[in-house]
């Protein structure tokens, strides 16, 4: 075991959907100097008032363990699952990508979007907005390809993830 190796982990946190809960989680990360690579949050159970926060973070094995223990001890936190070590999981991100171009570059952007299975959700005579879902790497690859073709704006959701198989977290 090399304790100094930096690992990236996707952590799924089930919390009470109450005022300030996100501030508690973010404050924990900033106060203790942990990284947040992405963070998503939304209510997942309206009757029980539960939200799921998905955090992608990085650190040494010791830091990752700390992060999970620190999250677990927050009062409104119900469960903390480290999807990276608990077995196979699916992680997806959604992006909206605006490209402004005309002529050959416009056609090229559409052709690449087709290869990446991005959908056009808005179009004008000199622009497209593509919608795309996939892994973080796939989204980044597409966005890089759009740069020379007139990329003007990107909006990404951050990662949401869930374990594979029939088991619930």
């Amino acid at each position, binding site marked *: 075991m090399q304790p100094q190796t930096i690992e990236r982990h996707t952590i799924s946190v089930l919390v009470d959907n109450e*005022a300030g809960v996100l501030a508690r989680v973010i404050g924990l990360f900033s106060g203790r100097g942990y990284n947040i690579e992405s963070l998503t949050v939304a209510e997942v159970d309206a009757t029980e008032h539960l939200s799921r926060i998905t955090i992608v973070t990085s650190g040494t094995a010791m830091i990752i363990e700390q992060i999970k223990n620190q999250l677990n001890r*927050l009062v409104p936190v119900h469960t903390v699952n480290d999807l990276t070590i608990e077995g196979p999981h699916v992680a997806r991100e959604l992006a909206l990508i605006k490209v402004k171009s005309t002529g050959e570059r416009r056609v090229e952007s559409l052709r690449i979007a087709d290869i990446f299975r991005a959908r056009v959700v808005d179009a004008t005579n000199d622009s497209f907005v593509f919608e795309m879902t996939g892994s973080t790497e796939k989204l980044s690859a597409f966005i890089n390809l759009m740069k020379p073709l007139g990329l003007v704006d990107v909006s990404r959701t951050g990662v949401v993830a869930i374990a594979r198989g029939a088991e619930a977290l």
Partner: protein
Amino acid sequence: MANEEMNGAQMVIRALVDQGVDVIFGYPGGAVLPIYDELFKQNALRHVLVRHEQGAVHAAEGYARSTGKVGAVLVTSGPGATNMVTPLTDALMDSIPIVCLTGQVPTHLIGNDAFQEADTVGITRPCTKHNYLVKSIGELPRIMHEAFYVARSGRPGPVVVDLPKDVQQAKGTYSNGVTAKHRSYNPQMKGDIRAIEQALDLIAKAERPLFYCGGGIINSGPTASKLLKQFVNLTGFPITLTLMGLGAFPASDKQFLGMLGMHGMYESNHAMHDCDVMINIGARFDDRITGRLAAFSPNSKKIHVDIDPSSINKNVRVDVPIVGDAAHVLEDMIRLWKAKQIRPNQKALDAWWKQIEGWRARDCLKYRPSDSVIKPQYALQRLFHAIKDKDFYITTEVGQHQMWAAQFLRFEKPNHWMTSGGLGTMGYGFPAAIGVQMAHPESLVIDVAGEASFLMNMQEMSTAMQYKLPVKVFILNNQWMGMVRQWQELLHGERYSESYMESLPDFEKLADAFGFVGLRADKPSEVDDVIKEMIAVKQPVLVDMRVDKTENCFPMIPSGSAHNEMLLGPDDVAKPVSEEGMVLV
């Protein structure tokens, strides 16, 4: 008497009483007037008016630490709440259970920059275990009871309940809603039995074992201290305690090596460095304990029992982690130890004790006595001599005097030593002493203080007078911020930047002005008489003990050094501190 109609302020008082609170420390203001009005109309709950909100939480900490109960505080919005930040952080760092009620502007004004409005839950979020803003009367009873549950459960800590004024005045239904199980917060009390067995295997084979225990034992309750003594005596192993743990194991027991850490005992620190099995129960590998991490107890297998999983593997990687309450785990350990009829390796243990006795023989607390000036160590030795057979409680401020008090005063029982360990809050000890005295009116309560720390919360002298609390303030007055001066001498080329306390008050006259009895000693020959009088007077006393201005606190592990690189005294100061060490505080 399940459900009753009442207003929010009445509910607050009712919930406090139902939670067993008998004393609340506080300071009124606009946003809590409805609660103060209800306080006025009842007799079940006693209110202690402090003179600065900071003093309220420190007093509640003293009360909580000396009784094992939750300390309660009531202050107003805005400045009342912002003055809570330091003592709440103090309580968080030292795991002291506190429920702090803060007034808030009415809900419809929140966010409008109203008069005396502050984002209390935002400001106190990082310095509390948990906090609540009560937005409607319907959730008030649940939150009040939950606040006490959270404050005292698991690793204890401070909880803030922010109470908008309109909620205090709204009518609603009160229920004594002590629910069976919390929705999400249910700390693990019992340790994993396989891990405990693994720990016992290590303990059984140990040749140079050491118990290293801390405040977790005290927070667990008196049973944990009893079980600890039983288990330590069963094994015959040596034990050292942290600053927060003093009293968890009787100081007079032969197996006790004394406190460890930066100003801990030579024998404790060397035993930590050389041990082969370390049994940590309720201590958190604080940097004041470990010294240089890379050189910390390099050859030991480490067992760590802690109720807070986030304390395990935070600073030091351990071999056998056990999450659980100290008393529960100790109970299991003793039971299994007896069932398995474990016998320690007595031959190895004898050799280990022989080595420890060798370290003990260095007599690391010795100092150069003087006939002309009062040595602070001498003053504390004489103090201890005078109080040791009495029912005494000690609080301290922060600095040299605190370390000397930890070294020279000895505690046989838990809950008798109150000090600011984690945060190191100057000004803690005096209000804490007031809280202790409120809880133990007949006991001898002494705040061992430095003159600089005492000045930080001396306004509480009025509080002591108002409630006729005969607290004793024992100032070791060296006219310096002693610990700052010591570091400047040892680490910063004797450049004494801003550490000299000029224009000190005449403490005897100060005592007089507030109605305290003022006493002063200038010569060693006067020390005993002053202490005797301080104890005899049944009133608050302020003692101005004029001690040696240049005395340094030894032994000492310099910043960035290892346990076996201790300085024993002034003649030992040779090696300059490394660059790495200079960065550390």
